[in-house]
């Protein structure tokens, strides 16, 4: 029997719940270590990023105003859908250079991490809220509210677990995100977009771009309708540039220098708090 000619997958980006190629129609080739072509990857333009911000802004308030229970269920649904496509994700991690064993470990940990943060969706508020005993006849309380639209620059390593560790705290907390995937390891992230699409996650809450970091870094940090930027990496020049650009609209900058996202210390609600605004409300108590 002749060997069947396989259908090769076209990897596309995920913006506003749709799977477009770059509006610029630019691409780059992803090759394995032997130089064989794996796939053509969209090379996101600044305009793609801009469109993503529009989509993220549009989606954010709706996402934040869903019940925490609903957000939690949607995150859990993502884990369910990942489980079904675990082998594909693992294969892609292998294509990105991981051993099969490591790839499976990473996929499993990634799914577990989704479940972990799914559980925080309706709990972190209780950890971080306070009722403040002000000296007067007032009821006064403080609650965390999402910062808004968050741009995320991924580190080169840990393309799946790292992705989830960087975006889940933002998403669990009601923010929307635009992620720039690792330039050389975008496959699992792009497949994750397809998983999102089948998991009840509203379009625009998570937007996933592939492309060149040095081309987009400044945009990610400077866009005036982005409220926070997460930088995964430890390049001091890049960080300086990001922090400088972030000052244009007083963006929060969250830095994650670690490469080992398996570390247990990542499992905590404080990373959710990094992307929350504490809102305090006063009201008189009287008749």
């Amino acid at each position: 029997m002749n060997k069947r000619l396989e259908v090769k997958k076209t990897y596309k980006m995920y913006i506003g719940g749709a799977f477009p190629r770059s509006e610029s129609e630019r691409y780059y080739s992803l090759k394995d270590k032997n130089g064989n072509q794996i796939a053509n990857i969209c090379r996101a333009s600044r305009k793609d990023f801009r469109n993503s911000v529009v989509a993220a802004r549009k989606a954010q308030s709706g996402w934040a105003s869903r019940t925490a229970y609903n957000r939690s269920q949607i995150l859990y649904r993502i884990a369910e859908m990942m489980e079904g496509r675990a082998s594909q994700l693992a294969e892609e991690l292998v294509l990105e250079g991981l051993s099969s064993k490591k790839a499976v470990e990473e996929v499993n940990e990634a799914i577990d991490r989704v479940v972990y943060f799914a559980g925080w969706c309706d709990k972190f508020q209780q950890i971080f809220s306070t009722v403040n005993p002000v000296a007067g006849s007032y009821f006064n309380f403080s609650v965390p509210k999402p910062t808004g639209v968050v741009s995320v620059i991924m580190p080169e390593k840990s393309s799946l677990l790292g992705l989830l560790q960087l975006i889940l705290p933002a998403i669990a907390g009601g923010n929307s995100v635009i992620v720039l995937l690792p330039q050389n390891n975008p496959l699992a992230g792009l497949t994750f977009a397809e998983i999102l699409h089948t998991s009840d996650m509203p379009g625009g809450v998570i937007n996933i771009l592939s492309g060149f970091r040095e081309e987009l870094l400044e945009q990610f940090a400077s866009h005036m309708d982005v409220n926070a930027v997460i930088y995964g990496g430890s390049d001091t020049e890049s960080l300086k540039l990001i922090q400088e650009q972030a000052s244009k609209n007083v963006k929060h900058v969250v830095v994650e220098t670690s490469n080992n996202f398996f570390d247990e210390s990542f499992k905590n609600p404080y990373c959710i708090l990094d992307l929350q605004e504490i809102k305090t409300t006063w009201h008189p108590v009287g008749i």
Partner: protein
Amino acid sequence: MKKEISNIPDFTKTVPIDQVNVEERVAKLNTRSIKKESKMFALKLAMQMIDLTTLEGSDSPGRVKQLCHKAMRPYSSDADIPKVAAVCVYPTYVRIARETLKGSGINVASVATSFPSGWAPLKTKLEEVRYCVEEGADEIDMVISRGEFLKGNFSYIFDEVAAVKEACGPAHLKVILETGELQTLDNVRKASDIAMYAGADFIKTSTGKISPAATQPVTLVMLEAIRDFYYKTGVKIGMKPAGGIRDSKTALRYLVMVRETLGNDWMNPDMFRFGASSLANDLLMQIIKQQTGVYQSADYFSKD
């Protein structure tokens, strides 16, 4: 002559009042520092605004006469001390007060309408009012039927006040809300509105028989009701806090509230009264202190 008031509001609706904010406003007004000439002016003004009152079961003709003399000449050693605005007595003492005060320019006020509880048939109340006016009362202090008010029977209160007003004829009508029984400031506001739209010339906090009597927050809410009524109709209604105002410091605080809520047009005995008895002596002591620079003792001032 009062002009016709149209557009009577729907009293089942409540004008919301926020208690905490009212109390804070009062506290802020209380930080006003009244010194020197402005203090002397205010002390004398407060004296002229007093409805010198005796409303006791033990009242006697002698006591009423004594009160009237005190009203005309609060401090025998100083003729410059102004006289009070009115003497307020029970209906049976109106005639005695009228005669004693003859020619003094001091009004006779009488509580009527089954003061203080108001539990009597309307017919009886109206007869009492007419009796007081016939006996020579210039001013009638009526009580509203709080039982009906708290039941939500607002039209009863409206009709009651309107009927009493009619019975008053030429006499001025002060409507006592008995705010201590109304409990909430929303209710105080509502009762004030009903009374004013029904024809009150003055609104008054309390009978003095229920605690709390006049308080600053209640008075502020009533002053603001008067202001809104004026804004809407152009008619100026008077205000009388009664009960519990015993010292000059408190009286001055009330005057500050009036000054800063309603302005100068209300800073006279035609528009503002204190229902009080012991206040007069404290004002006297303060006035003498201001004049002499020496702190005074109550022993040097006649009690009645």
